[in-house]
């Protein structure tokens, strides 16, 4: 890792190689549903990927909250001592 960054001295004194970052960005992109399905996915810029990631994480947070809400409602409808309830309780964070 350090040898790669030292060889890239011309690009600036970066300890982290550009390739690493590109690699990570592509991995991140593969997780994002919107960008993944888009054509010409090789041209997506890093800032766009980051933006989409932030949005996606926020969406997922929202979904988790909604699901927790639903699960807690379901929890009320069943017997609290049952094993199902314990499962649901463990799901709700």
């Amino acid at each position, binding site marked *: 890792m350090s040898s790669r960054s030292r060889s890239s001295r011309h690009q600036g004194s970066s300890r982290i190689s550009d390739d690493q970052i590109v690699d990570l960005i592509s991995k991140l992109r593969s997780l994002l549903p919107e960008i993944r399905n888009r054509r010409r996915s090789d041209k997506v810029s890093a800032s766009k990927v980051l933006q989409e990631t932030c949005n996606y994480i926020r969406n997922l947070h929202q979904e988790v909250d909604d699901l927790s809400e639903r699960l807690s409602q379901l929890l009320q409808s069943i017997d609290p001592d049952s094993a199902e309830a314990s499962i*649901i309780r463990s799901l709700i964070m």
Partner: protein
Amino acid sequence: MELLWQDGQVVVKSQRSPRKPHDHSVNLSPSVAAAVRGGSPAPVGDPLLLQHHHQQQLEDAVNNNHLFIQEDEMSSWLFSDFCSDLLLPSAPVVTSSVPSCPLPALPPPKRLDSFGHFSRPNPLADEATVVDSSDTPMATRASEDATRVGAQFASPVVRAASSRDQAGTSPSSASSASADPIPSTKTEDVACPPKVAEDGAPEERKRKARDCDWSNDGEDVEPVLNDDKRVSRGSSSTKRSRAAEVHNQSERRRRDRINEKMRALQELIPHCNKADKASMLDEAIGYLKSLQMQVQMMSMGCGMMPMMFPGMQQYIPHTGMGMNRPMIPFPNVFNSSTLPTASVGPHMGPGSRFPAFQMSPRIPAPDPSRILHSSQSDATLSSSSLQNSNLPRMPGFMDPYQNFFGLPHMHFHFQLSQASTSSSAKPTTSKAGETSQKESPD
């Protein structure tokens, strides 16, 4: 209380106003005030009083108002005086600095002039370029750099002068009176530049952490210097250099955008204290995966809930619903919890075969009809439906991410790993650990 570069001069930033000399003595923070007052013996000139000043700060503040004004101006001029002396290569720095420095009674406008040396383009290129960068958009950074540079300039001179002047502290004559405030302030002002440096240093570090660029960590400073050198020389501003400047600026803007997004991402990720980009991106990837998993599980739980009563057990397969490898229906969990552990053993082998799933973030909603269909295909399993304790339980691979979710009581374990090591590559290690645990709580 800070010594700040403001509009081309160093001002002592106090609470009310940085310009009013009358307020300075009142608003001085105790440390700086002590530093300033400690070196204030000019007309008083008594070594004993030096000690007194440390103890009776307020009284001195009242009594020696005019003195403190002078001291303040002196302390803030210190940079200018010594820097101008440094910047003017002709004047010998050490010996003539004392006699040639302006008298304490100079009015504030003089500060501007002395700092004019500081900010004008100068034969001493490196200082000037650092200083001149205050003209560029990077004004704040340059200003802090300038103050720190000034501090660096001042402190060696201060130290040299103070060591030299320790002998002469008797202040009777006028010339030595003008000389003495300076050495005594110098000794105290050694404390000031480090303070200024400290003020600048953490911010500088913060700035560096913030501006960790994709590829050019150090390059932000260089283009600025290069631009300023070009501007100051004024000669080599060819088209190419202008294009390069434009490119640099657009590159800088792009980097700023990316850094901003990185910061936003970092705030979204819990417990992310990583400073460098790669590890932060790693954590982001992991967190995103775990979040997706969590949403899957919860949605599945919501979908499965209506079905969760004992009669439906047999219809719920453990061979999965086309979802990610760790996904198991929830009823298996409570089955295993109610059943005796003795039944675990014999059913481990056949029951725990698990098809290899691909990681698909988009989970199709649990489909009861599909579940029924897939369960019927596995006759051996449905026959032992009541003894489903061998069925794989909730993903043990979630454990690495439990620090994200804070699930200490997530006791869903995978029994899968005993029989089929092939089906799951990643979670095997955690599962192996889990299987040993599953015996005890049950």
